[in-house]
């Protein structure tokens, strides 16, 4: 299956070593840095500094990791613009007001003093990376920089981006898994309003462009008009929707959808589910049950369980990832709403703690606003601000 193969990436082994405690929190807290313990692991994990990575314009096509097919939509108004440039473009100039500090940090050739490292930590924390992960990342980069006798901030920026990229790359296979020659089942889960339904429409649209026969199942039978919402998308994309009445049993919808998908010899079945907060035990049990229905019908399925995560989400995303993983065996994340000002840094913490890879990103409300996740572009965008 070309589509899936294309996405396949080599799994990286290098990874930031976990730090047990907050050994390095001092710099954040405006105190002298303790001479560092070496936490960065063996020498070969140190990456080559990439010169000017932070200031040079990116090659949009290579950064976006997208394909022409994505662009052929008549709704497309932005023209040929990649993931990264869309992120950077940020829709309007308003965005410029936010965080000009970051640009200074990258551009000016700063001395690598305590203040510099602190600012770096702040950038990460403000991107929702979380305290522990931020401190750890900066510490590890700081040690590396010292060992390599770096003294320019641009080199360090490249180094930290590389570190971020590696962490994201090493959290698992970034490509979507599929069944060999059979029906591939994708189960989509997440909290309320994360962007599940929209992401499903986007995926369906994309698969369809790869000549895959797609069927969608409306297993969100709870939220008012959720089925209508999905029906409108199914019509727009031009795929079949299997649905029951609002309020009916989602397990039964899934069961029917699997049989319909088989009967119609579909390649891919995507299942929408009702949004639920991860601390609601009964609702989490319900979604485990949905997974079991799929497992029982098709051994080896679901092939993907995608957790949809709003890029705006703060540290609670870790709890989301953990509890949805327990209930449904999440295989990857779709990070939505990256077209806003939120950076989605929480996926770094998730990568570190749970090794759950981000596979796709949403960058708008239209059906072609879905991209493969590109760790390098993401890392750059974490530190990038508008020109």
């Amino acid at each position: 299956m070309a589509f899936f193969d294309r996405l396949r990436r080599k799994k990286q082994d290098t990874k930031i070593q976990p730090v047990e405690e907050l050994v390095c929190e001092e710099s954040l807290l405006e105190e002298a840095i303790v001479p560092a313990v070496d936490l960065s692991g063996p020498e070969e994990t140190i990456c080559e500094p990439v010169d000017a990575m932070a200031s040079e314009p990116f090659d949009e096509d290579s950064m976006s990791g997208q394909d022409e097919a994505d662009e052929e939509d008549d709704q497309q108004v932005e023209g040929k613009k990649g993931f990264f440039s869309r992120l950077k473009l940020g829709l309007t100039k308003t965005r410029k007001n936010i965080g000009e500090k970051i640009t200074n940090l990258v551009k000016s050739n700063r001395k690598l003093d305590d203040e510099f490292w602190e600012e770096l930590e702040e950038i990460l924390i403000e991107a929702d990376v979380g305290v522990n992960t931020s401190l750890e990342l900066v510490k590890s980069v700081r040690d590396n920089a010292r060992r390599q006798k770096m003294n320019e901030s641009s080199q360090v920026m490249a180094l930290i981006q590389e570190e971020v990229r590696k962490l994201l790359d090493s959290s698992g296979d970034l490509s979507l898994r599929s069944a060999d020659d059979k029906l591939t089942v994708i189960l989509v889960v997440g909290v309320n309003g994360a962007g599940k339904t929209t992401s499903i429409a986007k995926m369906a649209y994309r698969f369809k462009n790869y000549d895959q026969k797609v069927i969608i199942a409306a297993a969100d039978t709870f939220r008012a008009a959720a089925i209508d919402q999905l029906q409108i998308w199914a019509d727009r994309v031009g795929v079949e929707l299997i649905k029951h009445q609002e309020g009916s049993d989602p397990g039964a919808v899934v069961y029917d959808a699997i049989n319909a998908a088989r009967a119609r010899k579909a390649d891919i079945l995507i299942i929408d589910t009702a949004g639920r907060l991860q601390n609601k035990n009964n609702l989490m049990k319900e979604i485990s049950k949905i997974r079991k229905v799929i497992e029982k019908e098709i051994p080896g399925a679901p092939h993907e369980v995608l957790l949809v995560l709003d890029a705006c989400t703060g540290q609670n995303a870790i709890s989301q990832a953990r509890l949805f993983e327990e209930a449904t065996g999440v295989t990857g994340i779709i990070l939505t709403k990256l077209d806003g000002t939120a950076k989605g840094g929480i996926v770094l913490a998730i990568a570190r703690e749970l090794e759950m890879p981000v596979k796709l990103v949403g960058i708008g409300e239209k059906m072609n606003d879905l991209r493969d996740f590109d760790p390098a572009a993401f890392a750059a965008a974490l530190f990038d601000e508008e020109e």
Partner: protein
Amino acid sequence: MAFEGLSDRLQDVFRKLRGKGKITEDDVKIAMREVRLALLEADVNFKVVKDFISRVSERAVGQEVLQSLTPGQQIVKIVYDEMALLMGGAESKLNLTSRTPVVFMAVGLQGAGKTTTVAKLGKNLIKQGRRPVLVACDVYRPAAIKQLQVLGEQTGIPVFAMGQGNPVDIAKASIEYARSNNRDIVILDTAGRLHINEELMDELKNVKAAVNPDEILLIVDAMTGQDAVNVAENFNKDLTLTGVILTKLDGDTRGGAALSVKAVTGCPIKMVGMGEKLDALEVFYPERMASRILGMGDVLSLVEKAQANFDEKKAKEMERKIRQQEFTLEDFLEQMQQVRSMGPLQDLLGMIPGLGKQLKGMQGEFDEKEIIWVEAIIQSMTREERRNPALINGSRKKRIAKGSGTRVQDVNRLLKQFEESRKLMKQFADMGHKKGKKGGMGPLKFPF
């Protein structure tokens, strides 16, 4: 429960502080570092944390504090004051002006929970004797109008819609509709949008200009991270918000967005969404929330709940008993039954000072089902035993266990629990009494 994680962290810090007789500037510094980390991990915005810490530190290292008899308590008090201030002090009511119709407008990012909140607001206002109409100004998201219509049906509130028309026209027409159909409050549901999308922000400005809302409410997902302040700042800049409604607070978020948004916009959080059900919308009480976060318990909410379910005279009597240590197993049982009629036990216990944290370890011991065996055990005791548990020796325990179909261990556990609660309750009662004398809250009436 939301805020729980933050609450746990802060209470750990405070326990350490309280335990010290003498506190140095260094102690304060260490404590503030921990408070800082706790707040950051709870998603309070970075800049807000900075300001907060510097304000608290400044007050805490003052001479009067450090040299007072109870420096630890004083510092906790400072944190509490600043926290309550950060969250907005006293509660703020929705602005129900005398004009007809009153106009509310809900705005926010995609997926924040606007449509559901609009329906909840409507339901809430009906309870207050109002006659709302919900207006479908989200003309973009597929089936958004339908969603509002379904919710309107569920709540019995009319929904005004004009298909995928221009939101400004829809808003204007809805006012006319309200006038001619005797609806006294119009609630506009608008499409979710990014705060940086100028075109769509302009649309909201135009709606605002056309209908001049009495409330422009920003709907914010309580799980939002650091970006909450950017969003709130931008919406506020363009629309001059009048208030914030936090949604999904029934999750396990640490809720830092709540603390940040008020701080950067000055807009009060007026209501909070506590569940998917359409009556799960509550007034937000910043002071109570602050005390809950700091482990001081949401005493006021508890008292209110208790009062709503409780006989005044009995309560007074109970309070006296608690204070004088006359509280018996009989009372214990009666209270338990009363509490059970007030709602989920976990929720109530979480509001009790000091218990929120302890609750974790007790979870197994304190679920609803176990009340049933507590009942059984107490009912198998004689009157004498219930009044004077000290009487209960080994052979009596065996008899009670047999009579209630439990084991001797269970009886022991219950007796231990009872002893502990008795101590705990005495503390609360005394505390409430003291505060009452100061004229703060009046005597506390604990229903157990």
